[in-house]
């Protein structure tokens, strides 16, 4: 079996984003998706801090501290971009105007519950940022994560043990092993990495999976 690396997961997500989509890429891993969006599709990237139409990273020395994304990294603006304030930006999110958001996760449950903001450790100081707004607001919530924790436990779980970001919000999960849809009747495997059998994926995941009739 050949696990996907982070770049490959990002590329797999990017493949699913259609022309004309309005998309928010979460901080961290999901930011990688931007590098893999097909160049022949116009896709409009949103960031919570009040911008639509984010372009590639600026060249070294061309950074502008007034032009950043939600991860506080310098970005550029494409032609057709626009700026707005935070309430308008989150109105866009909450008001279901974003077609997709891509988020990292600690855990996703079989019902599509998402845990990605807080480990629940008693001494941790939690930070939530825009995660709860995106999870509840985007039309399609895509999650990118490693399939297993460092000690080999499935991050896809019957019930999240970490504090929830939002309930029943995830539409599709992209991991280093598979692509899985969250549907009303359970988890459907859309895609697997080369050399991985459905039975092995089922064993590793520890929650009931279904085979998709045809891969996407």
């Amino acid at each position: 079996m050949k696990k996907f690396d982070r770049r490959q997961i990002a590329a797999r997500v990017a493949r699913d984003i259609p022309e004309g989509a309005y998309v928010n890429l979460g901080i961290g891993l999901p930011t990688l998706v931007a590098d893999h969006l097909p160049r022949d599709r116009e896709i409009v990237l949103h960031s919570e801090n009040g911008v639509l139409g984010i372009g590639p990273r600026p060249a070294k020395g061309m950074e502008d501290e007034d032009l950043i994304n939600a991860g506080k990294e310098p970005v550029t603006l494409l032609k057709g971009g626009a700026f707005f304030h935070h309430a308008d930006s989150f109105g866009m999110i909450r008001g279901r105007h974003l077609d997709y958001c891509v988020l990292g996760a600690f855990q996703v449950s079989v019902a599509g519950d998402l845990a990605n903001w807080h480990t629940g450790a008693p001494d941790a100081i939690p930070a939530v940022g825009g995660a709860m707004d995106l999870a509840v607001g985007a039309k399609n919530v895509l999650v990118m994560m490693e399939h297993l924790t460092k000690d080999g436990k499935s991050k896809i779980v019957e019930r999240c043990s970490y504090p929830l970001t939002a309930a029943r919000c995830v539409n599709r999960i992209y991991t280093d092993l598979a692509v899985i849809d969250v549907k009303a009747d359970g988890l459907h495997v859309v895609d697997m990495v080369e050399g991985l059998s459905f039975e092995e994926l089922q064993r590793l995941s520890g929650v009931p999976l279904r085979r998709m009739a045809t891969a996407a």
Partner: protein
Amino acid sequence: MIDKFIDTAQAALADVPDGATVMIGGFGNAGMPAELIDALVAHGARGLTVVNNNAGNADTGLAALIAAKCVRKIICSFPRQADSWHFDKAHRAGELELELVPQGTLAERIRAAGAGIGAFYTPTAFGTKLAAGKETRRIGERDYVLEYPIHADYALIKADRADRWGNLTYRMTARNFGPIMAAAAKCTVAQVRETVPLGALDPEVVVTPGIFVKRVVRIAPLGKAA
């Protein structure tokens, strides 16, 4: 390529079904999408719920839509005017339902729909006829009325300039309801005076980002070729 430009007002409204909720921008003539309203009259969808600040004036625009018996209900703040005779007649005949909403509550309910707010408490209209039967709540030292968002299937608005992504600017007080209606409707159709190449609109100056706009029709000002 994203291209929201569409050739004619007729084509832009071809899929409006009977019974749709349609927001119509404008305050007076400023920001009124006259050609889109004409196209809606010609299109002939029936049983519409219309959201507008007024209820039509004289014999054109929204008044013509009412006269053509396309409208079942109007949600507005200021129906009665010297020349609102088509509304007056249809309403008195019991053919046209009126939901009267204070202007600021109307604006905020539209804004709430676009921003995903489930409901909000406003001090406006507390203790008046227009809050009769509505849930109220005392918060701090003030009394409030609970109000719900107004969502729409279509918004017909008039802007000034647009690019092919649907980014819009407005002209002076013609801005009025345009930006909030654009965000509150599933399908926002903007008529504009001018279309410009992508990148021609300053990103600081875009008032309605294209994410809120589905279709853009250029209506040449009178006396200019289309």
